[in-house]
């Protein structure tokens, strides 16, 4: 769902001068219920934590200090780099990245296959791929949990056919979280890639084939560069929500190792009750995502110019 650029084919001026009026509700609602809250969250990350939840309105860098610096269990050792939270972020980025690659490996061939069907069949295939996306994310995650648990149908099937002789022990592992993320966001990859492949001009492939390029060379040197925008859009749509995922680590990972989403959740809903720290972690997450999106936007404008 790459953002639709403004202007485009219909840069009409019928309502010229009315833009302010027409956009006022948008500014009010998103401004009030997203911009101001995020700004407030940014402020909270620089406040002092109140014991057991809440904040005291005093400026403090403690939240960021705690995130990046290790001062020992008792807070009086000389500071060194704190790897705990960087580690949590790194694991989340790694998990989200891996999910993105997996989605691409499965999603690209699927999108390609669908886009090369006859137009009538395409819609049917698209429908088949999108229906699961419309099913509640929670339901899908729970279904995955049910399927792969030690006493679940997957292990029962494999055990009864003798393929394995002990349960796979998938549940509550990082692999299970990975599977959950991949499963949750796979349709996000297929749709934008499909949109790009559908517009692909096969004359390019034919030209390459005339020059004796092999099938895979054409894929690598001709097709991939052309459909790249769709692939990048798909990657972002998988990567960003995976990065802040909460349900998959909580339900499939046994709430055992934090990912960014669960780390932040714990600060507000769990025992930690450290609001400024949770706000700081959320700020850092948002910064990472904004950097990814900015890089994407810049590459888009570069491509548009080229």
């Amino acid at each position, binding site marked *: 769902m790459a953002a639709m650029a403004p202007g485009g084919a219909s840069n009409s001026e019928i309502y010229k001068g009315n833009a302010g009026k027409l956009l006022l509700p948008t500014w009010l609602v998103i401004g009030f219920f997203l911009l101001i809250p995020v700004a407030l969250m940014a402020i909270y990350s620089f406040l002092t934590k*109140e014991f*057991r939840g809440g904040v005291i309105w005093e400026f403090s860098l403690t939240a960021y200090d705690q995130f990046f610096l290790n001062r020992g269990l008792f807070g009086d050792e000389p500071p060194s780099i704190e790897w705990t939270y960087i580690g949590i972020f790194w694991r989340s980025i790694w998990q989200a990245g891996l999910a993105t690659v997996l989605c691409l490996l499965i999603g690209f061939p699927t999108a390609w296959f669908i886009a090369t069907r006859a137009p009538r069949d395409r819609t049917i295939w698209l429908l088949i791929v999108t229906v699961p996306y419309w099913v509640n994310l929670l339901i899908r995650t729970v279904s995955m949990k049910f399927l792969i648990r030690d006493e679940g149908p997957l292990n029962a099937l494999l055990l009864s056919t003798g393929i394995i002789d002990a349960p796979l022990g998938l549940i*509550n592992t990082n692999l299970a979280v990975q599977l959950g993320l991949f499963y949750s966001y796979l349709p996000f990859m297929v749709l934008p890639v499909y949109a790009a492949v559908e517009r692909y001009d096969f004359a390019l492939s034919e030209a390459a084939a005339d020059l004796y390029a092999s099938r895979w060379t054409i894929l690598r040197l001709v097709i991939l560069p052309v459909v790249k925008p769709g692939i990048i859009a798909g990657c972002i749509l998988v990567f960003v929500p995976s990065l802040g995922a909460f349900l998959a680590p909580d339900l499939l990972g*046994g*709430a055992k190792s934090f990912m960014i989403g669960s780390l932040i959740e714990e600060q*507000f*809903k*769990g025992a930690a*009750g450290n609001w400024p720290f949770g706000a700081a972690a959320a700020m850092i997450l948002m910064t990472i995502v904004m950097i990814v999106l900015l890089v994407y936007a810049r590459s888009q404008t570069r491509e548009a110019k080229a």
Partner: protein
Amino acid sequence: MNKFLATSLIALTASAASAQELKLYNWFEYMPQELLDKFTAETGITVTMDTYDSNEALLASLKAGKLGAYDIAVPGDYMVKILGDEGMLGSFTPDEIPNHGNIEEQWLNVPFDEGRKSSVPYQWGSTSFAVNRDVFDGDINDTAIIFSPPEELAGKINVLDTSGETLTLASMHLAIPQCTSDRDQLKALNALVTEAKASWASFGSDVAKDVLTSGDAAAGMIWNGFSAKARNEGANIEYAYPKQGVIVWMDNLTLLKDAPNRDSALAFMNFMLEPENAAALTNFAQYSGGVKGMAEFLDPEVANSPENNPPEGTKTVFVEACPEEIQVMYDAIWTNLKK
């Protein structure tokens, strides 16, 4: 004429009563719907119930703007103390609750609520752990089952997702006091749980029963009544009474500050202090009640369950509420553990 007046008065009070409500904030799976229905039928007060899964989650939620939204919460002993210290409790006098006298003697003058001015007993029980006997048939009455488990159980253990009980059980394993400020003891505690985590499969309180019945875990920290329920649902598990002791707790119907329906709250407390109702709750939750005269209504299976009848000489420990400067160190250990 008099008769007409009387009927209209009754009709008036009834219609006023039907508009009354009660906002209850309770642990999950801790209140049978039938009992709430009975309360509504008797008083005309409709009950809305939300649930939480740890004392700390309750505190966090009240801190996050929910104080003033609920009338009653059901915190454990140490959390009643913390909520009281934070100024988050309402109060009443015993004569506002006619059944106040039904509270058992031993639960009347409790350290967390001297003289019962903010809370009344709900259920009390113990926390230790249960082990699947199909998987492990050795001696289970040792906290080592959780903190340095035998090979059969390693990697198949669920622990409660609450720092209060989990770190207290770990302290008991190490035989160190709670709320200690001794550095070596805290370091040892940190080292113990960090190392033990490698043999834990998951953290979860609300899942504690399900992981045992579904076989996702072969051993798990659990509350005694919840363990009894898991056993009744077919899991071949045994509740342990470790030689280091078990944690004892009491959950209490507690009046919150700024309760929007204070009268409903007191009516509900009074209702739950009725022996028959307290027994119905106990039969459902399968812990023990703190109300006089319950015995005749109790399900013998619950009253005589192995989970409710610890062997003679079992050591018991209450979770303590630590002062802030010490609690932050326990919080640090917990966060460090869950990374």
